[in-house]
């Protein structure tokens, strides 16, 4: 078994503009994904959107600068994630295709294998 992080990307403004009805539909999509994925989901959360982010990086002279906002300024932001355990990439791809964000026109998901230090 290997571990993968599914990062859910999308247009933060479009997510913000969602109606209660839209949200309900989205949540139903995630519920059916979670059901299909079962115990292969190790963790998963929706993230507050990019303006809520805080970024730390070097100030170049040995200290740390803190900035408001995400590390990368982009229209498409990470909106949530799942930590998965699966036999191989095909299995994760098959499950991830159930996520509603894969089917909306402004969003998509990125699957990143997690380095196995074991």
């Amino acid at each position, binding site marked *: 078994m290997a571990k993968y992080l599914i990062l859910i990307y999308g247009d933060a403004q479009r997510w913000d503009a969602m109606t209660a009805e839209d949200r309900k539909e989205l949540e139903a999509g995630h519920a059916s994904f979670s059901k299909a994925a079962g115990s292969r989901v190790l963790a998963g959360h929706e993230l507050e959107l990019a303006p809520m982010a805080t970024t730390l990086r070097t100030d170049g002279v040995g200290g740390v600068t803190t900035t408001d906002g995400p590390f990368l300024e982009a229209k498409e932001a990470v909106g949530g994630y799942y930590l998965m355990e699966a036999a191989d*990439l095909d299995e994760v791809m098959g499950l991830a295709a159930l996520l509603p964000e894969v089917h909306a026109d402004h969003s998509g998901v990125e699957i990143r*294998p997690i380095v196995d230090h074991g």
Partner: protein
Amino acid sequence: MTTVSEAVAEAHRAEWARVFATTAQLTRDLDLAEECAQDAYAQALLTWPRTGIPDRPGAWLTTIARNRARDVLRRESTFRRAMPLLVSDEPVPGPEDGLDDDRLRLIFTCCHPALGRDAQVALTLRLVCGLSTAEVARAYLVQEATMAARITRAKKKIAKARIPYRVPAPDQLAERLSAVLEVVHLIFTTGHTAPTGAQLVRRDLTGSAIRLARMLHLLMPNEAEITGLLALLLLVESRADTRLSDSGRLLLLSEQDRSRWDTRLIGEGTALLTDALRRQAPTRYAVEAAIAAVHAEAKAWEETDWSEIVSLYGVLLQLWPSPVVELNRAVALGFRDGPAAGLDALTPLLADPALATYGYLSAVRADFLRRLRRWAEAADAYEEALALTDNEVERAFLIGRLEEVRAH
């Protein structure tokens, strides 16, 4: 008498994918499998002069490669636990089991959609066709180091992201098969007219593509898309020997000696095409094969059924909208209705940015202008076409035409 080195070369051409795939199934590690398969071929060069060429060279090579892999695995079993593995939770079959399945798994692994198209082509040529990294680099006009890095990165992704070594489930087959077929088609077209260099045709590449298509057809005889692609490749290949004159000049379809077209390939391609069309609605490759079949049926250039070809290009445009297909349709139209009609059909394409550096558009336009005796415009168009090709045989052809129109 076949010499040993010829026999080894032939076994490499015909059996590499099988030897490699079977070994990879045991090692689950592409690099190790490659090394062991290469060792087996080296061993053959040393052993066969003494023992004679075995009756089944592929089986001999597979056994040697797998034995070598077993030795290495035993010796390095502790170390190997830490190495990236090619994942497969299925039991490893015995040496005689599932040979063909292994090759099919290998092709689908190399063409997995999680790999970029460049990587898919490179891996297929390297691991399935057994081309060296230098040869793959030459086919794709990149430095050998660049290609080596590309192949290494693709192998690493297979291991790290755990791209499985498996034929996809039926519900994923359509998507992934079309990637595989596109790779095979791309290998063929690259060989059919080499993008640069002194040779027009790279028979090693067209040969590899045809062998892959044959293998896929053998393994999945009911997939009409594969049948259509194999039909297309065979019908196009049937003309391969007549595309150059004795002095090496490019010969157009109208100038080729049709008596030298390979009737065996035409017969086989036509039969496959009929079978593909009977099975399901035509695919892109089947329609392209049908166009090639119309050419093959014509006893002489003058007897070509241009109406049929124009309407087939119309069907192809529906299935596979592309400016290149529109260009080909305009050519056929120019032969059916005359060069003025062809030129009209080209006009909208001149503004298409996708064709801005496509030399064939200029060459086709030049030809229509030449046939309309608009010499000065034709000369300009030939010059444009010349600037856009790096293949020496094509350049020589275009220079000949340019001199011809300038003489008027």
